[in-house]
């Protein structure tokens, strides 16, 4: 049991709150991914402390929490994007379909094909729309023929709700689309390799409300086929799109629960304070 002090308040002694175990049920019946006692260190900084959570199949899980609470860091552990950072060390166990993804025998390249990622800022490659979507299937050798690849591109764009808007200009650069379209293109690119899990790191933070609504609708539609983990700064967004919500605070997972419960009757005072916009 550690004493965690929120550094943002003026009187830390008043703000001292005990985070013991994660409140709420971290386990689900049919987990797609399981994280057990995950610890992340950035050099000397203990960025993630003892996080245990299941991500259920075909579930949308939202990670919320104040900036720097480690939610994005934890998300990036789920497809080992943190590998690219030299000073980052991940301990504990993260399973995908029962297999530890940090096991030395696991190759990170196929892992990332199974656990796709969509980033905060829409980042299409400066290539054509078609090539953006076709990139994943190409490097992973998913398609034997051009016709097959065309089919995958069309399906992915259709699933991402972009096909009708771009079918006549597939050869134009993806960077020429609007912000919302770019983000949907990135989603199409991620689903083109048929992943099991899609990680989204604040996918709407750079978008206007209409584009955001479209992405949220898309997340809802995709959840029938994919497991989605979304990090968001917008509590309303977490409330709208997710089935379960996890609240992170200072590198710890404070509370997990069904979204409806988290937003009506959170159990932990930190969650309550965050959700209702209080300093506590």
């Amino acid at each position, binding site marked *: 049991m550690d004493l965690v002090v929120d550094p943002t308040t003026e009187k830390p002694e008043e703000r001292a709150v005990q985070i013991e175990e994660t409140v709420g049920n971290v386990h689900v019946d049919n987990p797609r991914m399981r994280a057990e006692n995950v610890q992340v260190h950035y050099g000397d900084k203990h960025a993630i402390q003892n996080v245990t959570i299941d991500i259920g199949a075909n579930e949308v899980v939202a990670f919320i929490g104040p900036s720097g609470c480690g939610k994005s860091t934890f998300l990036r552990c789920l*497809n080992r*994007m943190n590998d*690219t950072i*030299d000073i980052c060390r991940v301990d504990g166990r993260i399973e995908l379909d029962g297999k530890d993804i940090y096991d030395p025998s696991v190759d*990170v*390249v*196929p*892992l*990332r*094909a199974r656990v*796709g*990622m*969509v*980033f905060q*800022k829409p*980042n*299409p*490659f*400066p290539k054509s729309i078609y090539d953006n979507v076709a*990139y*994943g299937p190409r*490097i*992973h050798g998913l398609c034997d023929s051009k016709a097959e690849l065309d089919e995958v591109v069309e399906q992915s764009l259709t699933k991402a709700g972009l096909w009708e808007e771009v079918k006549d200009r597939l050869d134009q650069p993806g*960077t020429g689309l609007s912000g919302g379209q770019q983000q949907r293109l*990135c989603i199409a*690119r*991620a689903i083109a*390799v048929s992943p099991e899990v899609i990680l989204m790191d604040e996918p709407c933070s750079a978008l206007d409300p209409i584009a955001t609504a479209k992405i949220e609708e898309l997340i809802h539609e995709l959840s029938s086929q994919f497991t989605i983990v979304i990090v968001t700064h917008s509590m309303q967004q977490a409330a709208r799109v997710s089935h379960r919500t996890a609240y992170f605070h200072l590198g710890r997972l404070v509370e997990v629960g069904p979204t409806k419960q988290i937003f009506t009757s959170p159990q932990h005072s930190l969650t309550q304070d965050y959700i209702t916009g209080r300093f506590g």
Partner: protein
Amino acid sequence: MTKAMMTPQEAAQRVQQSVNKRYAAERRFQLIGKLAIATALGFLVILMSTIVSKGVPGFFQHYIQLDVTLDAELLDPRGDASVDSLFDGNPRKVLQQAVYAETGASGRKGKKEAFKLVSSGAQDRLRAMILDNPNLLGTTQRIWFAVDDDVDSFLRGYIKRETPESDRRLSDRQIGFIDELQAQGKIEYQLSDYLFSGSASRNAEMAGVKGAVVGSILTLTITLLLAFPIGVATAVYLEEFAPKNRLTEIIEVNINNLAAVPSVVFGILGLAVFIGFFGFQRSLPLVGGFVLALMTLPTIIISSRAALKAVPPSIRDAALGMGASRVQVITHHVLPLAMPGMLTGTIIGMAQALGETAPLLMIGMVAFIVDTPTSFVDPGTVLPVQIFMWADFAERMYVAKTSAAILILLTFLIVMNALAVVLRKKFERRW
């Protein structure tokens, strides 16, 4: 306790008071900037106008028209118009006949002086003409030959008629011949063909930049072939793969320092290593290329690293997130995006190399080489060294030739820099 806030009216009043002061300061600042730019532009205009005004005459020279009877027996003693035969022939005699006929010179001294009016390269030109077209043998042709450089200088007014004959490089008789020929319209001021087709020569009227230009191209080819791949590979490794530790830090610092090392040091290095240790011949474009590659490498590495750094991390993230391997991320995304920047850096490095003299002096590319090099291992020189050498020669005509060569060099530099700009504009992408 803080002072009470002032009212908006007070604040507006004070702002108004300070505004004029601010505008005055702004105007002062702009004026200083404009003056600085005007000074810089002024110097540039002076420089360019000097070079152009001196250089343009270098592109022209005086020619003399002669009716030459191409006597087959004299020119082609064996009668088969072969190279050997032509070289056994006596074009001098043919020319002499033509000159004497044209000037009406008589007497040993008169004939000798008359013949001196024509460039000594005229015989070679005659031979080359026949080689090109043997049918000319036996006919009489009206041909323009370059005049001797002293004659040229006289015609340009550098050698004054008023100067006493004993102090002049032309005799009174020669001046008489020239006046007569001019009166007949047989001396003309024409675009020089020697400048582009000729090589280094002691005879100013025959000197040209061809050998130097070819030497520069050969040298730069070697430089490009060496420096670009090595530089890009180094930059990619340092930027993308190398761990951040003491060793790579030292390497980085040293690369940055190398960029500031005086170029002559690279020449000494080249002399010691390539010529002293490996035993290469002096004056070779190959060795020059090696030395210039060494000198250009830091520039290319630094600009390539900057170009790599400029590739947004979001693109790397996107590719990594799709499951691309590190090498795929670099070859598929980072390098194509960084290429315009790398090419720009390379072209600027090459332009630097093109204008470089000092290190090449050290490895002997300053030698007087008449033949145009045809391979990387033929001795040669380069354009800036040629300029350097010409600037040293005494004949007046070299002044014009030097400036003309400088203009040619500047043209090359401008073309290369323009190419860099075009490349950057063309491949620049927005993301």
